[in-house]
Structure formats: structure tokens, C-alpha cells
């Protein structure tokens, strides 16, 4: 008996794990369930907002876009694909978006590089210059460009005074003006993701490359650039997608000739009270965006681009 009593606590001590697991596993499960519930509850406001403000309006748009004079009709969509004006507008929009995206890489990369590779005050000043326009209304910035670029504007006046040109350049009220103004608004969307990616590139790798005898440009091309590529991709997607739906700047700087998809939507509503046609154009643009995302995802998975993985 005594032996047994002495053994029992011993054996209990020797194999403590199984009973504890058996005892605690429902508790863990309960804890997990509770955690899960908390997560769902925490997500609810955001989820509700997305459903109420995004999913429902989209469904409503969809419904509106297929409503004809008598019952359901695809007339609003056939028009988009058969009338030249719609084709042209989508074409112009894509063209300007591509140009702006390309230019924002060209301009944004050096800025982000400079901000990421310098230290202290200089880096902060560079970033501040990029972010500052963010705090100014797009409307104000567009008008500012008008003041700079117009016929008797600062740029033309200066160039004429310097004797570089004799007649004012047509810098605004056309595609050129639209691209310049839009590019300015879009630049932070390129620089910021680029900067955050570049900042994460360890300096050691660049040093290692250098110490192995690579010339600076070789190091940049073979080490830095591949690691910065996801930033370029993320910035490009942001800029491109925002460009596709951009409105204020092209409206003000395009001179009425540069018609983008968003303006088509606005005109359909404002002028022709054609909500159905406007909905169809909006949804088609959304479909184009999804198509582009899908295509990009085939080449580079979106998760990687957005830095999730």
C-alpha cells in the first residue's frame, strides 16, 4: 500500500502531459472560439460598411444598367461596344493612364531612391516634398497648373522672355496638360510604396556585391533593382487604377477635348439624365480594372506585390 501510494504520485509526476492535454484542450477550443468571435465582431463594422456602401450600391448599379424602357435590356452595354465614342473614351483613358504610370515610375524612382538612401534631415525633406501636395486639394493643384501652363502663364512667359520660344507652347487644354496635372497628383502614390520597399533592402547585400567586385551600376541592376521591383509594381498598380477613374484634373486641364471614362459617366448623368448608361459605363470600367488585376496576378501574384507575403 505504502509502495503504491508512493508510486502513484511519482507516476503522476512522471506522465503529467496526457491528462493535462485532455483537461485543457476543450478550454483552448473555447478560447479559440471566443477569439474567433471577437475577430468577427471586430470585423463587423468594416464588413457592414463594405456591404452597405460598396456591395449594395454596386448591385444597384448593375440593376440600373440593365433597365431599359420596357423591362430588362442590354442596350446600355451594346452601346458601349458599338459606338465609337465609347471606344475612343476607353482608349484615351487607358492611353493616359499608361503614360502617367510610366512617367511616374521615371520621376518617382529617383525620388524614392534618394529618400531611401539618404539619412536624417535630407531624407525627411525629400519625403515631405512628396507628401506635402497630399494635403492640398486636387482642385487647387489643378488650378495652380493652369496658372503655370496657360498661354500667358508663368512657364510660357518665362520661355518667351528668355527668347527660347517666340510663340507660346500649347501646354494646357489638351492631353499634355492632362498628363502633367495628373502626374503631379499621382506621384506620391508611386513614391511612397517605392520608398517603403527600398528602405527594407539591407545595405549589407549591396556592400557584399560591391566587395565581390561589382561595379556600382552592376550592383544597382542585379541586386537593388530586383528587390525594388515589387515596389514599382505596387506603385504602378495604384497609379494606374486611380488614373482610370480620375476626374477633376482632366476636366479642368483637358480643354473639353480629353474625355475620360469618368467624364462620360458624369455627362450621362448630368446632361442626359441617363442613369442606366452611366451605370453601364461605370461597371464596364470596374470590369476593366478587375481584368487588369487578373492579368497582373498571372505574372506576379498580387499578395507579393502588396507585400503581404
Amino acid at each position, binding site marked *: 500500500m505504502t509502495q503504491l501510494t508512493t508510486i502513484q504520485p511519482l507516476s503522476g509526476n512522471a506522465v503529467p502531459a496526457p491528462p493535462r492535454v485532455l483537461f485543457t484542450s476543450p478550454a483552448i477550443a473555447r478560447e479559440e472560439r471566443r477569439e474567433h468571435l471577437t475577430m468577427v465582431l471586430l470585423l463587423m463594422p468594416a464588413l457592414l460598411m463594405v456591404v452597405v456602401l460598396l456591395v449594395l450600391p454596386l448591385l444597384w448599379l448593375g440593376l440600373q444598367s440593365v433597365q431599359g424602357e420596357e423591362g430588362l435590356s442590354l442596350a446600355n452595354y451594346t452601346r458601349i461596344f458599338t459606338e465609337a*465614342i465609347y471606344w*475612343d473614351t476607353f482608349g484615351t483613358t487607358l492611353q493616359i493612364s499608361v503614360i502617367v504610370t510610366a512617367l511616374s515610375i521615371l520621376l518617382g524612382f529617383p525620388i524614392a531612391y534618394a529618400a531611401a538612401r539618404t539619412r536624417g534631415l535630407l531624407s525627411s525633406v525629400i519625403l515631405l516634398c512628396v507628401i506635402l501636395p497630399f494635403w492640398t486639394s486636387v482642385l487647387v493643384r489643378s488650378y495652380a497648373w493652369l496658372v503655370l501652363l*496657360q*498661354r*500667358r502663364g508663368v512657364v510660357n512667359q518665362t520661355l518667351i522672355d528668355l527668347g527660347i520660344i517666340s510663340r507660346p507652347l500649347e501646354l494646357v487644354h489638351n492631353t499634355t496638360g492632362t498628363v502633367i496635372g495628373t502626374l503631379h497628383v499621382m506621384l506620391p502614390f508611386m513614391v511612397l510604396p517605392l520608398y517603403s520597399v527600398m528602405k527594407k533592402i539591407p545595405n549589407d547585400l549591396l556592400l557584399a556585391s560591391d566587395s565581390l567586385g561589382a561595379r556600382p551600376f552592376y550592383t544597382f541592376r542585379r541586386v537593388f533593382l530586383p528587390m525594388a521591383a515589387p515596389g514599382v509594381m505596387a506603385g504602378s498598380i495604384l497609379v494606374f487604377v486611380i488614373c482610370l477613374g480620375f476626374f477633376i484634373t482632366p476636366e479642368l486641364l483637358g480643354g*473639353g477635348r480629353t*474625355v475620360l471614362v469618368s467624364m462620360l459617366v458624369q455627362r450621362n448623368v448630368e*446632361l442626359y439624365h441617363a442613369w442606366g448608361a452611366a451605370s453601364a459605363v461605370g461597371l464596364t470600367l470596374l470590369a476593366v480594372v478587375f481584368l487588369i488585376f487578373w492579368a497582373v496576378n498571372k505574372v506576379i501574384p498580387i499578395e507579393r506585390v502588396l507585400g503581404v507575403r
Partner: protein
Amino acid sequence: MSHLSTQVTSLVVALGLASLAPASGAEEITFVSQGGAYQDAQAKAILEPAARNLGLTLKQDSSPKAYPIIKTQVESGRVSWDVVDLPTGDCVRGQAEGLFEKLDPQLIPNLAKLPAELKDDYMAGYISYSTVLAYRTDAFDEKSAPKTWADFWNTKDFPGARALRNLPRPTLEIALRADGVPADKLYPLDVDRAFKKLEEIKPHITTWWTSGGQSAQLISDGEVDMVQIWNGRASAVQAAGAPVAFTYNDGILETNSLCVLKGTRHRDAAMKFVNEAISAKLQAALPMIIDYGPLNPEAFTTGTIPAARQAVLPSSPENLAKQAVLSAKWWASAEGVKAEERWLSFVQAK
């Protein structure tokens, strides 16, 4: 508050107890316009004096896009607006959709004073503004300045940058006038001819403007040398000191009209209010505050408007004679709607 009282009142009426509703004080009418400086000026010159004269309690509401609200009110049978000031095109449209009361000439004797083209059974012409040709005085002196739309189209003798409105109304009228169509032979518009004429000037147009403010900015900054612009905007630019002049010659006059909502509970009071609002005396007071022209011709003989002021108003007899009056009826017609749809492909095509 007003909503609640409206609902309570309509409930009382619905129960057939209208006679039991207490008649409390003065009758109330609600007048609706587009707000801003325009409505403030009206309130001072026309609305408040009119209400005073009639012993009515005046309530005002404003909406830049009143039409859909009117439609909803009338169709739902819950009418809380009585008299509305609308672009005449909306009056024409609303008439077709049965949104307005027929005007009662017995209660609106002043209707007889309005020229026939400024009124019909359902609306009374109220105020006017004009689309005119403005130019930079530092680019042209008075002699060399463009004075007609034909001059505007003549890029050889009148060089310079130009801007037109990015809408067919009244740009098609302007193109037809440039092509030599007389002011009284414009309607029905020859749409094909107008677009053909517009193709001619298209390469010379710097900007197709979309807002009144934009047109003012273009001419005031010297971005263009001549522009299609509303007279009020042109006057404002001049008042701000820009070297700009404009002419009513070849102008296109547009109007706002007054309508009474169908199913209003203050029909007679609303009619009397319309009568006051288009009376010569009150009409004459408005242009002393703001650049809109009265439509009752007798307003110009009341002695309220000095000759110098008359000269810059769109509807003074002298200026009216030089202009064409836009037909809101034509623009509301099927042809008008089609012309409007055609615009976008015109302006966008390379």
C-alpha cells in the same frame, strides 16, 4: 418641422376634415429658386415685396436641381412647394409630364403684358440672361473687334485664341447665326448644318469650357482673345478690372420662368404671387441688384432703371432687338435631345 406640418395637414385633408382645420393668420406660400446671390437678389427685389403686398407669409427653399424634387412631390401627392423659378426648359418638360397647374389669367392679369414667346398656359417668363460674344480689349480695339458670330468664325480677319461652351445649347444656335441664318428663322434648328459649321471653327478653339466660372477665367486671364460667355459673367469680369468688352449683338437670350406646382394647397395665393412677381414695378427692381434682365417689357418704362443700366441688360428693348430668343420647346423636343446626344462625339472626335 415643415415636413411634419405638411404631413399633418394632408392627413387632416385626407380625412375630409379640412373645414375643421384652424385658419391661422396669413396664408403661407413656398417659393423655390436656385439659391445663391441670384435668390438673395430676388428675395430683396421681388419675393419679399410681393409677399408684403399680398399679405402672405413667404417661405423660401432653394435647389439648383429642383426638377426631380418637383416630380417626386407631385407624383407622391405631397406637395410642399407652391411657386418655382425654373430654367424654361424644365417648365416645358414638366408641363409635358403634368407637374404644373394651368395659370389662371384672371388671377394673373400681368400675364397679358408678357410677349407671346415668353409665356404659355403653364408658365410665365420671369428673368433672362444672354449668351454673348466677349473679347479682350488689349487684343482688339473697338473698330477691329469681332461683333458677330460670323466674325468669331473668321479667323483670318480676327486672329486669336477662342473658346466655346462644351454644350450644344446654345452653341448650335451660335453656329447657325455664324452661318448666316437670321435670328427669327433659327427654329427648328438645322442640326446638320450647325455641326458642319462647328467643324470649321473646331481647330481654332483653345478650350471647350464646361462651367461659367471657367469661361470667366479664360477671358479674364487672357487665355483666349474671344469667348462665348453669359452676360453676367462678362460683367463680373469687367467689374474686376479685366480688359474685356462684350456685345449683345447676335446674343442668344435664355429665360427662367415661373410655374405653380400641380396639387398645391395654395393655388389662388400662388397665382396672385406669380402676378406680383412679374409686375413691372418689382421686375424693374431686380436688375438694380443683379445682372439679370426683367421680362415684363414695362419694367423698362417704370423709371426705375436708368438708361446706362438698361444698356447692359440683356432684355432691354434695344438689346433684345439684336438677339435671338432660345426656344426651350425645341430643345425639349425629340430632335433637341438627339442633338444634345450628338455633341459628345463631335467635341471628342479628332
